[in-house]
């Protein structure tokens, strides 16, 4: 086993520009023996020569000339999309609805799994110091929590915050809780899928559209900035003008009208397939850990770490993984040129 491929690595990597990648066969194919790959030796060659092993797949090693600059990978994104700019907090997982496409599998039967006020307060405080510029509270249905006003105020005390809700519970003591929140720092994002009840109620339950519409009006009347977010099957996201017209009539600014495609996650039996590689992360914290994105916060394949604190470390890990995926994707693009 002479590791003859070392000569090929030196020649091929040495011939390309810094930052470019090459894929080189690194199998030891001695006569009469089976093909074998010494992964440690490949990694060691890259380490010694200051190059980056992007991927070792089968007998093929993809190597980047020089080292990737993680900051350069992140710099390619718009400022608002850089991982760690927005921080999602799952306040709880239980919900008064059981939507058939819920990415978090929330329902009246789901365990609460609440973050709790102490952790939310600490997360909000650390977020401000870790470069986060916006907090988003979601669930489950946050208004099921008796201390939702304290949770929201702990967040708005640190950063501008958005509170996601189905808007159906804004009555009585829950309306009182809403009224105790900071109108200058809190936006209320309410889920509504269609300009008429049929589509919305089909997925979210009979009568839910009317009560949500009432909630939108209540939140707006109370002086909160209201965003409305619709979750639509991929094929329906192009014909949305009637929906926009309806939201216009409610006084919702166009910038606050959000149409998002259904994700194949949680309770949904179809929708966009989202993987770590295809999804730009938005750091998401639940009672169980730190996840890649809010759409996958109930899925182990998107769990980044079960250690919530210090938050800056969790954010750094998400950024590191993202840079890694980006580097791999860039390399993949170079493996399969069109011409």
């Amino acid at each position, binding site marked *: 086993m*002479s590791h*003859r491929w*070392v*000569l090929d690595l030196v*020649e091929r990597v*040495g*011939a390309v*520009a810094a930052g470019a990648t090459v894929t080189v066969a690194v199998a030891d194919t001695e006569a009469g023996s089976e093909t074998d790959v010494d992964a440690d030796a490949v990694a060691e060659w890259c380490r010694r020569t200051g190059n980056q092993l992007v991927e070792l797949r089968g007998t093929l090693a993809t190597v980047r000339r*020089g080292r990737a600059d993680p900051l350069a990978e992140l710099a390619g994104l718009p400022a608002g999309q850089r991982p760690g700019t927005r921080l999602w907090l799952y306040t709880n997982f239980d919900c008064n609805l059981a939507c058939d496409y819920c990415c978090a599998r929330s329902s009246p039967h789901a365990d609460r799994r609440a973050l709790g006020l102490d952790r939310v307060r600490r997360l909000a405080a650390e977020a401000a110091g870790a470069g986060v510029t916006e907090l988003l509270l979601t669930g489950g249905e946050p208004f099921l929590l008796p201390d939702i006003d304290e949770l929201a105020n702990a967040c708005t005390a640190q950063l501008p915050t958005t509170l996601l809700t189905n808007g159906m519970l804004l009555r009585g003591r829950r309306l009182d809780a809403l009224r105790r929140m900071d109108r200058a720092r809190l936006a209320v994002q309410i889920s509504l899928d269609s300009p008429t009840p049929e589509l919305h109620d089909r997925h979210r339950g009979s009568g839910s559209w009317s009560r949500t519409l009432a909630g939108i009006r209540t939140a707006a009347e109370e002086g909160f900035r209201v965003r409305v977010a619709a979750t639509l099957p991929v094929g329906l996201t192009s014909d949305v003008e009637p929906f926009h017209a309806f939201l216009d009539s409610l006084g919702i600014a166009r910038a606050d009208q959000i149409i998002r495609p259904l994700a194949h996650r949680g309770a949904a039996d179809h929708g966009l397939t989202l993987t770590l590689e295809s999804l730009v992360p938005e750091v998401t914290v639940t009672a169980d850990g730190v996840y890649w994105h809010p759409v996958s916060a109930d899925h182990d394949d998107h769990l980044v770490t079960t250690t919530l604190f210090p938050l800056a470390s969790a954010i750094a890990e998400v950024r590191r993984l993202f840079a890694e995926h980006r580097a791999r994707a860039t390399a993949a693009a170079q493996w399969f040129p069109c011409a």
Partner: protein
Amino acid sequence: MQTHLLVGAVAYTPNVVTVWEGIRDYFAGGPAEMDFVLFSNYQRQVDALLDGTIDIAWNTNLAWVRTVARTEGKCRALAMRDTDTVFRTIFVARAGSAWEGLAALRGKRIALGSRDSAQAAILPVHFLRRAGVDAEYLRIDSDVGKHGDTGRSELDALRAVLDERADAAAIGIGTWEAIGRGELMPGAFEVVWTSPVYSHCNFTALPALDDERAAPWVDQLLAMDWDNPAHRPILELEGLRRWVPPQLDGYASLFDAVREQGIAEHW
């Protein structure tokens, strides 16, 4: 732009562009601004230095020796890499051959790199002759014109040993380092002999470039700092930690070799 110093370099990898754009940017706004011109081979570059097209040439050791010959010693070296002062040639054979020293190569078939490579062809022959060792040579001219800069002919020489087309190969210390000094290729190679250090590349100028223009450029070049994040990538790509004043004693063996082997002034 008229007053900028013009530095020539040979484009032997795409990274030469990155290196020289970085060096040009490093000098921008300073007392010795510069631009660069890339050549496809060292003969073109030395010709351009002699006809005044460029002010300074980033020369290999063979290009330096030829420039000295063609200017009758009137050219001068301005600076070199720290790594250029400690270059070596390594003779390697298949692991287990247990050959120690050049005498062990007597009568053997030795793979050499491109014929214009000082480290992998001209100096190996010189060292063998000085040791009184007659050997058969397998010359592998994979990158003629670039004086062995691409390293390809040295890798081909190593392949020749693995394929048993040669008993040993002569390569530069750079290639030996790049393959992990044999540690990453178990059972492949072992060192037979390591040469004394000699000098490799340098910045070469003619008397037409007076000190008033050259000195500020050299001062600023020597001030590039490995610990400065803005300088580091350029230094890494060019293969040095710092620029140093030239060590001309290190070219003595190559002057002897060129004279003894009758290496032409042009190639």
